[in-house]
């Protein structure tokens, strides 16, 4: 069996490399290039899809050492349960996205070099998989950087556009700075152990001084947080995701951000062992802030891909809420409660990959059909693209955490973890933080729902708002299959979460020594162990049964339909115009996305600081206005108050310093002179 697993790993990695190579070589024949490139990607994902669960089910890690070494560190791939889980996540999403890409990439033929797309696309998946499987920090950093680079090239794929280039630049700068933090953390670990091997680290946790541990923790939080897009390090994210081709955005948002979560869990929970309580609290707060602000900024966006990108910030926040709770419990030694948080976080990792991937693919499909990303120019698409619309609706429901889809399952677990914080014996502060953050999560969920009512409603319902939207047609079948697969998974993971809980069992066992199954319930149940907290004997354990809920829903729908059939007088409905105060309804009269989000913009004006500009054009006198042009914007808080001043400071400083090289040879000689004199005085 291990031999088989090894083979799978090698097949997975090599077929991606082959795909990259071949699709570039064939770039003169774009159709063939697309076919070959994405077929190899699919092959690799299928291999990964077998490999990940196989390792998880066998409960043994896999080690593959290749005969290759650089300065003492061997090229070793090592898949522990955590890695295997992430491999599964990546494979699941990449498979669907690669299927989708057959159709999607063909839109680029004649416009861009699709060979290059295939090259980087395959390399991108390769680098993520290799990164997850790395067994030492050198390889990790190596593939981490390769991943950043390749994704950078994908972001600037349509580089003729200035905005795209700018987005790409901000992206690579931010991610590179993040990498520096990670690297420092790794080097500190290396200094303590003299080894790059992750395997060596897990045993040293108790030898590290608490200060050093905390330093490393802060460093990885910053480093991985940048990649994951936590507030306020998220600014690259809403710029880079829209710039990339949609299939790439799906991967970036769906799984690339998760590699950061993987790295974080790996270091913070696996390597550093038990930490201080404030670690967990910090992560909880970061999570809550990211979740709430992420969704709020998303609400203000009308570019569908930017909107989705902000939702990535939100969902990373939700994931971190679960993980933060787990960290808190772990530091108190309540591992059975840490289990809930960890499971919630990891489950949401998978769920977010699935539904966000689906939504990005949906956005890609809509863009494919309407050539715009501005939702104000869409509308009425549900009739023109019924399947895309249907899948997008499922994605919207899932991301809003609405049962019976998968988002609900993991958010429910997150809620439970936060409530457990409230009722376990952790002291008043924790007990208050838990439910309060629960309320924040509730706010997030409700805002997300508002946002997707807006997105789906404006994009797919009512009357088309532009000629492009009117002419839209359903996308090719491969794209539908890719989306359909993910939509199906949204439902399956939502109704049968035990599949995932089951797979997570070895992961949690390896991280906190407890398996999920006995505690988180058996089949068809999602249980949470009763918490004997405030001295209350718990009468009912927390549990939901998603299949039962779905059954109840379906049953009630059937009953109601029967009832209606029986009692309603008219069986037919009459189709007529929408009532519009007696005038004909045109698309200009519809509620726009801007007006839809207006109440929220006003309610949270302290955060958004909306600005508004109104221009009047008039005939003769201001009373006879011929045209009013109104323009609104919100202030990008973090850019205005953090990044722009920082950048300004840097550039100003650099400008000042460059005056040192003023061109005067006298000055230059003066430097030498001063250096020499200084050395003569001080250095002896």
């Amino acid at each position, binding site marked *: 069996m291990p031999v088989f697993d090894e083979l799978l790993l090698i097949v997975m990695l090599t077929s991606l490399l082959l795909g990259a190579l071949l699709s570039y070589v064939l770039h003169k024949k774009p159709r063939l290039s697309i076919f070959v490139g994405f077929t190899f990607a699919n092959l690799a994902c299928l291999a990964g899809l077998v490999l990940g669960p196989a390792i998880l089910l066998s409960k043994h890690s896999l080690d593959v050492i290749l005969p290759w070494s650089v300065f003492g560190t061997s090229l070793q791939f090592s898949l522990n349960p955590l890695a295997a889980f992430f491999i599964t996540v990546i494979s699941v999403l990449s498979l669907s996205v690669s299927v989708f890409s057959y159709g999607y990439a063909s839109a680029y033929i004649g416009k861009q070099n699709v060979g290059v797309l295939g090259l980087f696309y395959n390399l991108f998946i390769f680098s993520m998989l290799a990164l997850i499987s790395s067994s030492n920090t050198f390889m990790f950093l190596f593939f981490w*950087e390769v991943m950043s680079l390749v994704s950078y090239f994908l972001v600037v794929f349509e580089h003729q556009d200035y905005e795209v280039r700018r987005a790409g630049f901000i992206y690579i700068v931010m991610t*590179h*700075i993040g990498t520096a933090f990670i690297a420092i953390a790794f080097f500190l670990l290396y200094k303590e152990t003299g080894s790059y091997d992750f395997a060596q680290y897990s045993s040293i946790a108790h030898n590290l001084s608490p200060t050093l541990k905390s330093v490393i923790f802060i460093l990885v939080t910053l480093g991985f947080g940048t990649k994951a897009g936590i507030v306020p390090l998220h600014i690259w994210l809403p710029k880079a995701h829209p710039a990339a081709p949609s299939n790439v955005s799906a991967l970036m948002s769906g799984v690339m951000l998760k590699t950061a979560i993987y790295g974080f869990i790996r270091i913070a929970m696996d390597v550093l062992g038990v930490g201080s309580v404030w670690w967990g609290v910090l992560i909880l707060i970061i999570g809550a802030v990211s979740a709430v602000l992420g969704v709020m900024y998303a609400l203000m966006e009308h570019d569908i891909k930017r909107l989705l990108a902000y939702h990535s910030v939100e969902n990373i926040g939700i994931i971190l809420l679960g993980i933060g709770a787990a960290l808190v419990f772990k530091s108190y030694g309540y591992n059975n409660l840490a289990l809930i948080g960890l499971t919630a976080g990891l489950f949401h990792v998978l769920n977010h990959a699935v539904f966000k991937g689906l939504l990005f693919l949906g956005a890609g499909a809509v863009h494919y059909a309407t050539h715009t990303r501005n939702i104000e120019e869409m509308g009425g698409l549900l009739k023109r693209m019924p399947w895309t619309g249907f899948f997008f609706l499922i994605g919207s429901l899932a991301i809003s955490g609405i049962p019976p889809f998968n988002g609900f399952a993991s958010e429910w677990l997150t809620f439970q973890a936060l409530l457990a914080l409230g009722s376990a014996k952790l002291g008043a502060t924790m007990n208050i933080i838990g439910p309060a953050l629960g309320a924040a999560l509730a706010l997030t969920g409700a805002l997300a729902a508002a946002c997707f009512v807006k997105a789906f409603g404006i994009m797919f319902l009512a009357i088309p708002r532009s000629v492009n939207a009117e002419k839209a047609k359903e996308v090719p079948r491969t794209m539908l299959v890719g989306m359909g697969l993910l939509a199906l998974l949204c439902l399956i993971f939502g109704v049968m979460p035990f599949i995932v809980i089951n797979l997570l069992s070895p992961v949690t066992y390896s991280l906190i020594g407890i398996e999920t199954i006995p505690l988180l319930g058996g089949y068809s149940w999602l249980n949470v162990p009763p918490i004997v907290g405030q001295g209350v004997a718990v009468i009912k354990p927390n549990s939901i049964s998603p299949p039962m809920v779905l059954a109840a829903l379906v049953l009630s729908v059937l009953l109601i339909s029967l009832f209606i059939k029986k009692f309603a007088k008219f069986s037919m409905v009459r189709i007529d115009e929408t009532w519009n105060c007696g005038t004909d309804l045109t698309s200009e009269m519809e509620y726009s996305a801007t007006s839809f989000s207006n109440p929220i913009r006003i309610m949270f004006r302290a955060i958004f600081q909306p600005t508004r500009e109104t221009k009047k054009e008039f005939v003769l006198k201001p009373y006879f206005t011929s045209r009013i042009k109104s323009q609104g914007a919100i202030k990008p808080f973090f850019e205005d108050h953090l990044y722009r001043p920082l950048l300004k400071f840097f*550039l100003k400083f650099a400008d000042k310093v460059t005056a040192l090289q003023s061109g005067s*040879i006298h000055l230059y000689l003066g430097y030498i002179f001063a250096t020499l004199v200084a050395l003569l005085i001080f*250095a002896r």
Partner: protein
Amino acid sequence: MPLILLALPLAMALLCLMVTDRRLLGAISIVGLATIVLTTVLIARQVFTGSNVVWGQFIFIDALSSLILCLVGIIGFMVALYSIGYLDHDIQEGQLSERRLKYFYFSLYIFVFTMFLVLVSANLGIMWVAVEGTTLATALLVGFYNKRNSLEAAWKYIIICTVGIIFALFGTILLHYAAVSVTGESGSLDWQTLRRVARQLDPKLLKLAFIFVLVGYGTKAGLAPMHTWLPDAHSQAPSPISAMLSGVLLNCAFYGIIRFHLIITEALGPQFSSNLILFFGVLSIAVALPFILVQHDIKRLLAYSSVEHMGIIAAAVGLGSKLALYGAFLHMINHALTKSSLFFIVGNVCQHYRTKRIIRIKGLVKTMPITGPALVIGGLAIAGSPPFSIFMSEFIIISSGFAQGRNVVSSLILILITLIFTGVIYATSNMALGTPPSRVKVGEQGNFAVAFVLIPLLPVAILGVYIPAFIQTILQQVTAVFIGGNQ
């Protein structure tokens, strides 16, 4: 053998003076440098497989010198090949007259000769003469275009470097003075002898000597704040010469510092000179940063990047552990290859776009389908991102810093490198991407030019993922030079 090494470039230089024909000159230069590469490789082979090469009183080649010898040979060879296409283009454009071509090759060979002399001489005095010789040989090359800016650059170059080198001479004299009573007249500047007797020398004098040498050779090696000539000279020289200056000349000058450093370390222990070198190394990286961030001229940017990389090498030598030294010399190789290829690339680009200003160069991936991507790759490589070799050496250097417990310095270096990365990427991506200006036509600068853009990048890419055994052996032997003092 070492005699051939020295005689060959001299002979070629004289030969070049007698020829005017463009093709013939090219052919001569290729053949000449090919022979020279062969010689250096043979010498290196001898050194690395067994014994150091000694000839008479004045020539001594050990692992360290032969490593740099090879670099000089290889980069020189590539420069000779690249120059053919580059100069042809210049002549066609009317930038140069064919008549002056022979002076170019003449100076090139003298340049190679002086660098060889630096590396093979066993005597610090002769080494000094040779280092000054490199300045003289290249001063006219820097001003080769005879334009205002290039003359200004040449002037600054020769003045600043000469001033610096005078200090180095003074340091040498002080050392000589310290040693003469111990070793007698004959061995007083022989670095091997000096290293052997180092502990008997007057420490105060040695310190003073080292300060002067550090400032002196440091000027030539481009360590901040004595680096000021460097961006001018590198940006104004013809691109092949820039490649040579950046890729190997700086290393040769730094080689001078290392020789003194070894002696001082032997006498005073590792603290004094190591810390000074480390300080100047880090300072150089820091000084390069703002200039790279707001740079307008791509060749100047590359020059500042050379300052940065010399800083990294210096910092690594200053750190001084075995791993750090391994990294330092790996970095030296990597930097030489990457930087020279970048100068070739930029040479093509600047000729094609007829400007060096970053802002006016756009859409390279469209207009130059090979050079454009190569620029991106080169930029990434020089900025230290995997899978290219500089990532590897920087990783080694910084991790060795941490391993020594010098967390703050190592973190500082890491952060500076990170910030420099942003500057380099900003420039290269702006040049490579975007829509090209309409006046620029699509096409490469000819096969020759393209080939030598790619050839140095190949080892850069390979070394990033795989260090062959022979290079590891070489590096280990070079590192060993630092450890065995009393052999």
